[in-house]
């Protein structure tokens, strides 16, 4: 476990993230251009989706996949209620802000997903390709839950905003579409496709991930410097406690389903992660009164670094215990 943590901390991926945070806090002008950051994210999601699909093309679809997807949906829907209760009990966040934050923690972070697979790859631990579908399935239910929580507590959606339009938009957001689309293409083309795309999608993956995590570090560092003032101690504590709670729940489910070590680690990490692409945008539309800086600072400034530096090795170690 300690060795795992050390190996994680000394991985180039984590170090590039730390470099980014340090550069941002030192107010260096180092930056990754916006469109480049979007390219890196697109590439990583495409790569991870495709590889998952190729793996499923090998292994086939079985009942475990369906059960795991169902478990993921359940988790994503349930966690916001839990998060909301915790936030209301331990912090001073008002109902709307608490609901918005809860939505972020119920949903998943595609970037954390990419990071855990990078770490597993480095350790040579296999995970099931269908976890890509699980990740995609876990993105939206949390938003539905948050809307239920906030109903009546907010002074209404933005005028004219229809709930179904919103959910449709969230379900079709770019990161889900590329993840699932590449997954489907991986399933359809299998080994033939894999051979063709290996140099681009597989070999370069670790390097691109380093560059991307440098960027995430820069953005997280800047966000933290900016958003710190929005975070009281209890709110910041939530951003570390909630992943542990979500992760524990996910670990229990993974154990019940009988997932492999790798897949257990991925499911725990997904539950422990907090969204910062799809959900933030959805919350701006659904709960505009919520202050976006709170959830974003928590999710990218506290939870993501925590997961990257401490959480992921912990979840992998935990998965090792659970699944063996």
């Amino acid at each position, binding site marked *: 476990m300690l060795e795992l943590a050390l190996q994680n901390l000394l991985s180039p991926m984590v170090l590039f993230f730390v470099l980014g945070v340090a550069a941002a806090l030192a107010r260096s002008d180092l930056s990754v251009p916006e469109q480049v950051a979007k390219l890196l994210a697109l590439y990583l999601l495409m790569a991870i989706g495709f590889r998952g699909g190729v793996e499923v093309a090998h292994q086939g679809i079985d009942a475990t996949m369906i059960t795991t997807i169902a478990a993921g949906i359940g988790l994503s829907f349930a966690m916001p209620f839990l998060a909301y209760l915790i936030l209301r009990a331990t912090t001073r966040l008002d109902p709307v802000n608490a609901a918005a934050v809860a939505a972020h923690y119920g949903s998943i972070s595609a970037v954390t997903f990419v990071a855990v697979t990078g770490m597993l790859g480095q350790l040579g631990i296999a995970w099931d390709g269908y976890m890509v579908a699980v990740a995609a399935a876990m993105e939206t239910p949390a938003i539905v839950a948050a809307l239920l929580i906030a109903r009546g507590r907010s002074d209404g959606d933005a005028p004219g905003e229809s709930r179904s339009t919103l959910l449709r938009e969230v379900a079709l957001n770019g990161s889900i579409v590329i993840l699932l689309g590449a997954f489907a293409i991986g399933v359809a083309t299998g080994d033939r496709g894999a051979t063709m795309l290996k140099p681009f999608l597989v070999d370069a993956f670790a390097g691109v991930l380093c560059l991307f995590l440098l960027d*995430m570090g820069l953005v997280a560092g800047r966000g933290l410097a900016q958003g710190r003032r929005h975070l009281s101690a209890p709110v910041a504590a939530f951003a570390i406690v909630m992943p542990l709670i979500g992760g524990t729940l996910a670990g229990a489910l993974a154990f019940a389903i009988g997932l492999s070590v790798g897949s257990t680690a991925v499911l725990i990490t997904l539950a422990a992660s907090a969204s910062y692409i799809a959900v933030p945008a959805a919350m701006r539309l659904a709960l505009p009164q919520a202050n976006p800086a709170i959830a974003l600072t928590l999710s990218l400034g506290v939870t993501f670094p925590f997961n990257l530096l401490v959480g992921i090795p912990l979840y992998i170690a935990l998965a090792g215990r659970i699944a063996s």
Partner: protein
Amino acid sequence: MQTYPKKRIEIIAEAPLLRRLTARLDEAGVGGWSVVPILAGHGHGGDWSAEGQIGTATQMVMLISIVDAARLDAVLDAVFGLVSGQIGFVTVADVAVVRPERF
């Protein structure tokens, strides 16, 4: 050259709102609009920057629409209902154009 007075509406709004805003403009019957990027900004909510961002939730964009004065109120009504609950604001300026029938 003969010019004619029109109104230049400039809306600074959250990027996630863009589709809904332009739909409102279209409904209000404006002849056209253009979207200009914003790189960074500062306001009551603090600083933000587009640099390195992979999502659009924190970003602002600028919408520009040249409209006839007669249509101004309808457009402001349509837009204001949406923008007022969100981050952003609307400014209106007087401009002169050469081909008034265009707007």
